[in-house]
C-alpha cells in the first residue's frame, strides 16, 4: 500500500516537473523567434510584426493608471496610453485589442505571449530591460511625493522623509516603488497592489506620504487640499517611458522606434500628453 502511494506521488511529481519543463521551452524559444503557439501564426520571417498583420489585431497589455489608462463611464478605455495604442494600431493598419493586466504580473504576461506589446506608461529600467526590449521613449514621466499635512506638515525636502520614523505607501512593481527604495532607503515602505489603496492609507493617516508618478500627487493635493500637500516643488526624477516587447525581434523594435520618431516630429505625442496630464477636460468622462 505504502509503496504504491509513494509511486503514485512520485509519478505525479515527474509529470508536473515535465509539464513545467516543457513550458519553460517555449518562453526560451520566444526569446529567439516568435512562437507560433503564442502568436497564432507561423510566419515567414518570424517577426511579431508579421504575426500581428496576419492576425489583423494588435494585442496591447496595460494596467489602469490615471490618467495613462482608465475606464470611462461607458466601460470604454480612455487615456494617454490608450490614444497612443489606437494611433499606433491605425498606422499599422490593424485593429487594437486591449488586454488589461495587473501591473505586478505584466512582464510575465508579455513573456508568455498573452499580448504583443506593453503600452502602459512603463518606464525603462535596466532590470526590466534584461527581460524585455524597450523602444525609444515616447514620453517622460516625473516622480513626485504627496504628503499628509497632519503627519508631515513641515517637511519640504526629500531628505526629511528619509528616516526610520517615516512610512511611505507605494504601488507594487512600479518605478515609484524603485524610486522610493533608492531615494528613501531609511524610510519604511508599504507596498500595495493598487494606487487607490496607497491613497487610502494616506487618507487614514497611517503613512506620512505616497510616492507616485505625476500627475497623481498633483491631482490629489488639489482634491484634498486641506489634508495633503506637495512637499517638493519639482519632480525628483524624470523617467523615460517606452513600449516593451519580447526580446529577439529587431524588426518589430525598429518599426516601433521609427513610429516614435515620426509621431514625435509631428508634435502629436506632445499634444496628447498635454491634454491628458495638464488639462481636466476629460474628468467628466469618468465620474
Amino acid at each position, binding site marked *: 500500500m505504502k509503496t*504504491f*502511494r509513494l509511486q*503514485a*506521488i512520485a509519478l*505525479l511529481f515527474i509529470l508536473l516537473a515535465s*509539464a*513545467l519543463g*516543457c*513550458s519553460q521551452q*517555449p518562453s526560451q524559444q520566444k526569446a529567439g523567434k516568435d512562437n507560433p*503557439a*503564442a502568436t*497564432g501564426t507561423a510566419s515567414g520571417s518570424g517577426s511579431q510584426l508579421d504575426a500581428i498583420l496576419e*492576425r489583423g*489585431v494588435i494585442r496591447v497589455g496595460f494596467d*489602469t*493608471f*490615471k490618467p495613462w489608462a*482608465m*475606464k470611462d*463611464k*461607458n*466601460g470604454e478605455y480612455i487615456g494617454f496610453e490608450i490614444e497612443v495604442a489606437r494611433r499606433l494600431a491605425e498606422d499599422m493598419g490593424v485593429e487594437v*485589442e486591449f*488586454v*488589461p*493586466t*495587473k501591473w505586478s*504580473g505584466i512582464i*510575465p*504576461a508579455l513573456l*508568455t*505571449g*498573452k499580448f504583443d506589446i506593453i503600452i502602459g506608461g512603463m518606464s525603462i529600467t535596466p532590470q526590466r530591460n534584461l527581460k524585455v526590449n524597450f523602444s525609444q521613449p515616447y514620453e517622460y514621466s516625473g516622480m513626485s511625493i504627496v504628503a499628509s499635512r497632519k503627519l508631515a506638515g513641515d517637511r519640504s525636502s526629500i531628505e526629511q522623509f528619509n528616516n526610520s520614523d517615516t512610512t511611505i505607501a507605494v504601488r507594487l512593481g512600479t518605478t515609484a516603488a524603485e524610486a522610493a527604495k533608492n531615494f528613501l532607503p531609511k524610510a519604511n515602505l508599504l507596498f500595495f*497592489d*493598487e*494606487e*487607490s*489603496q496607497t*491613497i*487610502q492609507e494616506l*487618507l*487614514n*493617516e497611517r503613512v506620512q506620504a505616497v510616492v507616485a508618478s505625476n500627475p497623481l500627487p498633483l491631482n490629489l493635493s488639489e*482634491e*484634498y487640499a486641506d*489634508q495633503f500637500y506637495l512637499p517638493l516643488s519639482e519632480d525628483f526624477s524624470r523617467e523615460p517611458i517606452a513600449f516593451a516587447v519580447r526580446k529577439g525581434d529587431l524588426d518589430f523594435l525598429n518599426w516601433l522606434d521609427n513610429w516614435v520618431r515620426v509621431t514625435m516630429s509631428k508634435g502629436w505625442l506632445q499634444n496628447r500628453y498635454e491634454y491628458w496630464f495638464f488639462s481636466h477636460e476629460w474628468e467628466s468622462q*469618468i*465620474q
Partner: protein
Amino acid sequence: MFLTTSKRPKTTLLDVVILAALAGGFGYILFKAATGLNYHWKWDLIPQFLVRIDPKTGFPVPGLLVQGLFTTIRLSVWAGILSMGLGIVMGLFRVSPSLFKRQVGMVYVGLIRNTPPLVLIFVFYFFIGDQIMSLLGVDHFVYALSDGAKEVLSWFFGPMNRFPRFLSALITLALFEAAYIAEIVRAGIESVEPGQWEASASLGMTRIQSLRLVILPQALQRMLPALAGQFISIIKDSAIVSVISIEELTFQAQQLMTTTYRSFEIWTLVLVMYFVLTFLCSLAVRKLELAVNR
C-alpha cells in the same frame, strides 16, 4: 432561516439589551466610518456603475460593475458544471475497488486541497495554461470566428477576444473546486449502507449497475445540499481569478477604484452585490433541501 414553529419564542429583557448593544456598536462603527476617516464620501457617483443610460439609444444598459457581475455568474456556472463532472469522476475513483484509481483520486484531492488557490491559479495560468491552450488551438479558433458567432458565444462566455484567458481561469477554478466536490461525492457514496451493496450484488448486478441503479440515487439525495453549498463557494472563490485580470466583479471594482479613487463606496457596493447573489443561492439551496427531504 425562519423556523415555523407553532409557538413564537418570547422576547426577554436580555434579548433587548443584547440587540441594543449590537445596534449601538454597529451604529458607532458606521458613524466613525462616516466622520472620522477623513474620506469625502460621494455616493451619488455610484449608481452609474450599476446601470447607466446609453447616450445613443436612451435605453438603460448594465454599468461596469453589473458587467463584472455577469462575468462572475458566467464563470461560476461554467466552473460549477465542469467541476461537478470532474468531481463526480474523482469521487468515484476514491471509492473504486481498483487501487490505481484510488491512488489517482487521493493524489489529486491531496494536491489540490493542500495548495493555496492563489498560487495554483498563478502556476496554472503562466506555466500550464499556455500548453493546454496551444494544444487545443483556442487562439486560432477565436480569431477564425465570424462576427455573428462571436456575438452568440459572448452571451455564454463574455467577450470572445478574452476567451483564452477566461478558459484558463475557468479550468483552474474547476480543478480547484472539483477536489472538494470529489470529497462530497465520496462521503455521499460511503454513507449508503453496505447492505445496499450486498443486496444489489445478490440480485446479480455488476458494480456499475448497482452504482447506477441503487447506490447513486440514494447518495445523490444526501449529497445535494453539500453540493449546492459548494456552488456558493465557487461564486465566492471566483473573486480570486481577478489576479490574472479576468474582468469579473472584483477586478472591475479594482479598476474603477484606480480610476475614481472611490474605494469605500465601491467595496461596500461590491460586498452587497456578492451577498445578494450568494444569499439568493442560499435560499434556493434551502428550498432544494426541503424538497429532497420530503
